[in-house]
C-alpha cells in the first residue's frame, strides 16, 4: 500500500456542467498535498468528492487501499475542516468533538481519552465547556481541527481553513498546522488560494485550473520550473514578467523584435531546444540591479518608470528597450523615477514557453 489516496479518472458533473474530468491523482502516505488554484477551478469540488459529500459521475476513489467510491463520508476514514468552521452552534466544544464519536458508538472511556489528547494538542482544554458562539475565530478553527483529530483517521481534508481569519492569526495557525502534520504524520489535503500557505505547508502542490491539475510537484519545482505559462504567472508575488519574442535558429538568442535581444545560453531546455515564437518568463526577484548587475551573464539598461517602496525591498517598474519589466531591489538603495540603471540576470533562471501551447520548453 504505497498510496494513501488514489483517484482514478474522476469525473464530476452538476447536470450539464462538468467541473472535473478525467482527473487522476495519487497522494503518498503522510504527504501534505496542497490544492492551489483560482476561484471556481474545482478545488472544493475535488475535496468534496474525496470526502464523499458529492456523488461522483465517474471514476474511482481509493483511500488507504480501499475502494471507497460508494461509501458514506463517515466510513471513508477522513476528517474534514471547513472554511466557515461549521461548528454545531447549539453544542458545547466538547459536544462538537464527541458528536462524531457518539454516532460511531465509540466507548465512553475511549472518547474521553481522545478528547483529552486533541484538547492538549490544540490547547483548547479551557474551552471545552463553552459554546462556539463564545469563541474567537482562531479558537473556533482550532476546535474544528480538533473535531477532525478525534476521529483518529488517516486522512485530513482542509477546505481553506484559514481564509476567514485575519493575517496575523493566519500566520500563527499556519505554523500550528505544519507542526500538527509533523507530529501526527497523517496524509493531508489542503485547499487554499493563498500562495504563501501553499509554498510553506506543502510537500507537493497541485495547481488546478478549470478542473484540471496543471502541475503536481514540490513547491520549489513549481516555483523554479513551472510547466506552463499559467502556473508560472500564478505562482510568485509580484508576478513573473512575460515577454513575447522569437528564439533564433540556434535556440541561443531571444529577440522581442522591438529592439531588445539577449542570449539565453545556460537555459536548461526541458526537451530538445527548439526555435520559433516563445513567451519568456523572468521573475522580478531574479533580476539584479545596480552594482549587483555586474557579472550577470545578461546585462541590460533599465529606465525607471515607477517605484513602490515596501520597506524591506523596493519594487521597480521599468522599461528596457521598450519592454516593460518589473524587478525588486534592496529597500535601502535610493532610486527615483527617470533613473537609468544597469540590470542583469542569469538565463538559467528563465522560463521559456512555447507561444501557442504555452508549455515549458
Amino acid at each position, binding site marked *: 500500500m504505497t498510496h494513501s489516496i488514489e483517484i482514478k479518472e474522476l469525473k464530476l458533473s452538476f447536470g450539464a456542467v462538468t467541473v472535473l474530468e478525467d482527473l487522476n491523482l495519487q497522494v503518498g502516505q503522510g504527504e501534505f498535498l496542497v490544492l492551489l488554484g483560482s476561484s471556481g477551478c474545482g478545488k472544493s469540488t475535488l475535496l468534496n468528492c474525496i470526502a464523499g459529500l458529492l456523488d461522483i459521475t465517474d471514476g474511482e476513489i481509493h483511500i488507504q487501499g480501499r475502494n471507497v467510491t460508494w461509501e458514506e463520508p463517515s466510513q471513508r476514514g477522513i476528517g474534514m475542516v471547513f472554511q466557515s468552521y461549521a461548528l454545531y452552534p447549539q453544542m458545547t466544544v466538547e459536544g462538537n468533538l464527541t458528536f462524531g464519536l457518539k454516532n460511531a458508538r465509540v466507548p465512553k472511556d475511549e472518547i474521553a481519552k481522545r478528547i483529552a489528547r486533541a484538547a492538549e494538542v490544540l490547547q483548547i482544554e479551557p474551552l471545552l465547556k463553552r459554546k462556539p458562539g463564545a469563541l474567537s475565530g482562531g479558537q473556533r478553527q482550532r476546535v474544528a481541527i480538533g473535531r477532525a483529530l478525534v*476521529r483518529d483517521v488517516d486522512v485530513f481534508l482542509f477546505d481553506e481553513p484559514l481564509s476567514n481569519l485575519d493575517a496575523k492569526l493566519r500566520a500563527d495557525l499556519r505554523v500550528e498546522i505544519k507542526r500538527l502534520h509533523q507530529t501526527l504524520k497523517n496524509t493531508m489535503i489542503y485547499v487554499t488560494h493563498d500562495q504563501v500557505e501553499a509554498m510553506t505547508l506543502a510537500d507537493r502542490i497541485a495547481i488546478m485550473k478549470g478542473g484540471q491539475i496543471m502541475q503536481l510537484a514540490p513547491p520549489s519545482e513549481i516555483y523554479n520550473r513551472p510547466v506552463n505559462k499559467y502556473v508560472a504567472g500564478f505562482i510568485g508575488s509580484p508576478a513573473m514578467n512575460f515577454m513575447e519574442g522569437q528564439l533564433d535558429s540556434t535556440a541561443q538568442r531571444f529577440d522581442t523584435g522591438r529592439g531588445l535581444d539577449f542570449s539565453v545560453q545556460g537555459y536548461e531546455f526541458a526537451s530538445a531546444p527548439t526555435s520559433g515564437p516563445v513567451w519568456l518568463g523572468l521573475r522580478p526577484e531574479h533580476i539584479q540591479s545596480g552594482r549587483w548587475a555586474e557579472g550577470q551573464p545578461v546585462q541590460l539598461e533599465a529606465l525607471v518608470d515607477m517605484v513602490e517602496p515596501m520597506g524591506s525591498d523596493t519594487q521597480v517598474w521599468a522599461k528596457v528597450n521598450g519592454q516593460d519589466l518589473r524587478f525588486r531591489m534592496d529597500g535601502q538603495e535610493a532610486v527615483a523615477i527617470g533613473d537609468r540603471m544597469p540590470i542583469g540576470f542569469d538565463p538559467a533562471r528563465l522560463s521559456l514557453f512555447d507561444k501557442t501551447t504555452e508549455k515549458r520548453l
Partner: protein
Amino acid sequence: MSATEITTATRNASAVAPRGAKPKNPFAPRNIMLYGTLIIFSIYYLLPLYVMLVTSLKGMAEIRVGNVFSPPVEITFQPWVKAWSEACTGINCDGLSRGFWNSVRILIPSLILSVSVAALTGYVLACWRFKGSEIFFGILLLGAFIPYQVLLYPLVIILRELGLFGSLWGLVLVHTVFAMPINVLLFRNYFVALPEELFKAARVDGAGFWGIFFRIVVPMSLPIFVVSGIIQVTGIWNDFLFGVVYTRPENYPMTVQLNNIVNSVQGVKEYNVNMAATLLTGLVPLVVYFFSGRLFVRGIAAGAVKG
C-alpha cells in the same frame, strides 16, 4: 489664560455649538404620521374589544337602558358562567365547554402532525434535494392558491372512502394537508439559509437523515417552529368551515358551537352571554400571542434577513 483655554471656555458658554447627540424634535411630521397612524389603528381594533368586554360584564337590564360604551355599573360574571356551561344551542344546553374540549382535541393532534410533517418536508426540500424536488415544491406552493371551496367536496369523498368522514381524525388530516403549503415554505426557506457546511460536517461525523434533523437542524430552528406553531394554533382554533363540514355535531369545534349559541333563536338575545362566549372563544389565540409574540416576531425577522 492660554489660547486653548479661552476657546474651550467660549465653546462651553455657547450652548448651541453642535456637540454630542443630535437633539430630536418629537413633533416632526414623521413622528406625527407614525404615531397618529398607530393610535388610529389601535383604536380601530381595541374599541370593539372594549365594547365586548364591558357588555359581557353587564346584566341584561343594564344593556337595555345603557350606552354600549359606558362601563358596567354593576359588574356581573353571570354571562361568562352561562356562556361556558349553560348557554343553549339548538341541540343541547351545556354551553361552550363542550366546543372548547372538542377544539382542544382537534388542535393538539393537528398542531403536532402539521408542524412535524411540514418541518420534515421542508428539511427534505432544503437539505436532501432529489431530482424534481424543485418542481415538487412548486406544486406544493400552488396549493396555497387553490380556493378551499374547490376542494371541499372532493375531500368529503376522499374522507368517506378512507372511513374518516365525521371523525376527529378526518378533520386532523384536513388541517394537516391544508397547512402544508405555507408551513413547508416557511421551514424550507429557513433551513436553506442554514450554512451548508454544517450538513457536510455532520455527514462526515456520521449523522444520518434523522440524526442531522434532530441533532443539528431542529435545535437551530426554534424560532421558525414557534412561528409555524402560532400560525397553526390560530388557524386551527379559528377554523369554522372545516369543522362544520367534516365533523358531526358531537365533535363540533368551539367556533361552530359559538355560532350555534349566538344564532340560536330562543327568547331574547342575550348580548352579554354572546359577548362572553365570543371572548372565551378568542382567548386561546390571544393567550398564545401574548406569550410568544416576541418569539414570533423574531422568527419572522430571522427568516426575512436570511431570505
